[in-house]
């Protein structure tokens, strides 16, 4: 569809909408609006955002595809229950401000979530339009619409209202998505909130993990700036458990409540031979070097080096694997292989990310998994030896279990291996916080209000859920903040 055709269609539909209601059949006929994107060849050589965003015309056409179902099944799919059909109606009416106000009732970071939420397994999975076409990719693009209105608001300087100062101190550990929400919500209640961040920059996984080409850092910084304007204090280079313990924060430094949102943060390795050879990275390390430390600018400003790879194997099938593979392409690798032991169907990565990765020339090696990493006399990686796999019966995750095929060994020549098979819980808080209850995987145990076994201590995100998503971490940040506000109000009444 050309821009002109799109314009004309929109004008026709607007006329119809004015005179009466658009019938569902007419709405079904509106073609799904694709996201404008950078050309795949071009973007292999830059770190700019791949998806460039809807225009107003795209957005209004896409919004008109929404049937405005009475039951709004999309809302049930949203972890923070945004009033989806209402904000979409506002977009179709051209009232973008109203749309944003509706979103912001429930989500603090629409520009982030519009980009990184796995909508296809949340709101868009249950969308009636998608179901009608029996194709989830034809559902209304709720995420793209959310991003569209959030981006229009880029210059808005408005800051959420903050209640009168209570003088009560709240510590938020970690400045990732959960921490940002918990800090904003407790600050809104008038508490004296401090975020402690271990890195020298704020944003957590949004800045060290998710690449610039998928989530520009400026967008995250804007959200952090909003917090600062609200009066939230931010202390970087502060490792809770080392610089100060939670006990010290509460007993000596006068914090009345703590939210722990430190993320998962301990990369899993495979336990195979050769995993410590030079050229083998955890995805965390590879992405942190590339994103947070800007290794893509090495030699023209940045001091942090990263492997100058020719052939890269990324192990795993999640979003982090896609991010790593696509980062390797941008850092100049000639060949990037994605090695995954199940099939594309079982990949936990978003469809869109898989699609983008393929467009950028990443070769998928499915039903394969490395058995060992092979190195030369200098311990530099030269190849991986893989086994072929087949799928057996479904396992407890519901996905079909991959079974190795005996004797199917073969080698892939590579100089870099990136392991992206997930994270375990970082033990630092556990080792330094007596009385805090953990489960057998090292995740913090919380109740439905995100309250831990210690009074005044709440937790959420990956350190509670294991590997989760940005939006789930935000959801827990919000639940915890409400519980903290409640706890602090009750505590005040008692005293």
């Amino acid at each position, binding site marked *: 569809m050309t821009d002109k055709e799109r314009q004309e269609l929109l004008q026709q539909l607007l006329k119809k909408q004015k005179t009466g209601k658009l019938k569902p059949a007419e709405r079904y006929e509106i073609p799904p609006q694709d996201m404008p994107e950078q050309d795949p060849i071009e973007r292999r050589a830059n770190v700019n955002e791949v998806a460039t965003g809807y225009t107003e015309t795209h957005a209004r056409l896409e919004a008109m595809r929404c049937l405005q179902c009475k039951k709004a099944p999309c809302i049930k799919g949203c972890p923070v229950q945004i009033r989806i059909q209402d904000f979409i109606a506002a977009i179709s009416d051209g009232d973008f401000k109203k749309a944003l106000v509706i979103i912001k009732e429930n989500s603090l970071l629409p520009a982030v979530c519009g980009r990184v939420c796995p909508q296809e397994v949340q709101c868009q999975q249950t969308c009636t339009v998608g179901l009608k076409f029996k194709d989830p990719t034809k559902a209304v693009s709720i995420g793209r619409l959310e991003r569209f209105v959030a981006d229009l608001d880029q210059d808005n300087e408005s800051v959420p209202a903050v209640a009168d100062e209570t003088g009560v101190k709240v510590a938020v550990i970690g400045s990732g998505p959960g921490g940002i929400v918990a800090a904003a919500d407790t600050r809104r209640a008038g508490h004296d909130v401090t975020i402690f961040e*271990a*890195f*020298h*920059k704020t944003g957590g996984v949004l800045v*060290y993990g998710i690449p610039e080409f998928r989530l520009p850092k400026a967008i995250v910084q804007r959200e952090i700036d909003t917090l600062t304007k609200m009066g939230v204090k931010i*202390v*970087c*280079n*502060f*490792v809770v458990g*080392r*610089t*100060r313990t939670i006990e010290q924060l509460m007993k000596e430094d006068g914090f009345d409540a703590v939210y722990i949102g430190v993320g998962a*943060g*301990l*990369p899993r*390795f495979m336990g195979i031979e050769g*995993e*410590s*050879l*030079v*050229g083998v*990275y*955890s995805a*965390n*390390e590879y992405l*942190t*070097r590339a994103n947070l*430390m*800007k290794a893509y*600018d*090495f*030699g023209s*400003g*940045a*001091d*942090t*080096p990263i*492997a*100058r790879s020719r052939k890269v194997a990324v192990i795993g099938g999640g979003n982090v694997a896609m991010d790593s593979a696509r980062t390797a392409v941008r850092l100049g690798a000639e060949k990037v292989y994605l090695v995954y032991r199940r099939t594309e169907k079982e990949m936990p990565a978003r469809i869109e990310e898989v699609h983008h990765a393929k467009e950028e020339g990443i070769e998928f090696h499915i039903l394969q998994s490395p058995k060992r990493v092979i190195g030369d006399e*200098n*311990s*530099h990686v030269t190849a991986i030896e893989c086994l072929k796999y087949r799928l057996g019966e479904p396992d407890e995750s519901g996905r079909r279990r991959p079974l190795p095929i005996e004797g199917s060994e073969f080698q892939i020549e590579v100089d870099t291996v990136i392991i992206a098979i997930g994270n375990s819980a*970082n*033990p*630092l808080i556990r080792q330094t916080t007596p009385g805090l209850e953990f489960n057998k995987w090292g995740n913090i145990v919380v109740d439905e209000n995100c309250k831990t076994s210690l009074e005044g201590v709440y937790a959420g995100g990956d350190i509670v859920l294991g590997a989760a998503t940005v939006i789930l971490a935000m959801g827990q940040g919000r639940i915890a903040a409400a519980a903290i506000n409640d706890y602090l109000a009750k505590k005040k009444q008692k005293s």
Partner: protein
Amino acid sequence: MSHRIVSKRQLSEDVFTAEVEAPLVAKERKPGQFVIISINNEYSERIPLTIAGADPEKGTICLIWQRVGKTTAEMADLQQGGEIANVTGPLGKPTHIENFGTVVCVGGGIGNAPLLPIAKALKEAGNTIISILGARNKELLILEDEFAKISDELIITTDDGSYGRKALVTEPLKEVCQRDRKPDLVVAIGPAIMMKFCCEVTRQFGIPTQVSLNTIMVDATGMCGGCRIEYDGQPKFVCVDGPEFDGHKVDFDLMMKRLNAYKDQEQQAYEQYKKHKCKIGLDE
């Protein structure tokens, strides 16, 4: 918050020391721990440096570093009153201090810096301290006086014989291990190759040997795994499982290769920095 350099001194041709404002670290740090620093916020790399001492009253820590690449050269060019953007810590597990009996503290080159607070703490815990300090030549030997104060016996070696014994540290270490009263513990900190050979000596005598490793790190909180070593056949993270390990279980050969992973790029960055500095010099 930036960290001001309160004072700075050159200890030898390439070794520098500075007292840096870091009140929280100064208050909490224990022997054996380290910090991660980066000079500016946008583009600087993060490097681990051991804490050689601290003054909790003044809120300062003492850093000692050797000029080996761009970041350490840039640090060396900072002057009193200058600032380091980020100092994070204290990181790593503190040294386990108790009265073991007789402890041999072996320091090589810049390794004397992290060794000093450990030796001090061990002395205070009642141990007899035999210090063996090695350097390439007299000029590169650091902290001799400080070690003299806390050591019951002090042996100095230089590679070229310009001071003390002309030997590698492993020679006197072996002799000490051969004495009737065998040492109860050896703590060896220095270049990887030195620690490796110290461990080979002590292994023959069955003397427990502790080493402190300084691998390449990024976050230093357990998140990236870049610092991992092979320990007893298992991967361990130096930043959170260490930095101190039983030296007899460390695969030093692999560790040395990993330390060299970015040699070319480090060289490139250093050359660029030196060139840039020369140009600035010409403009003046």
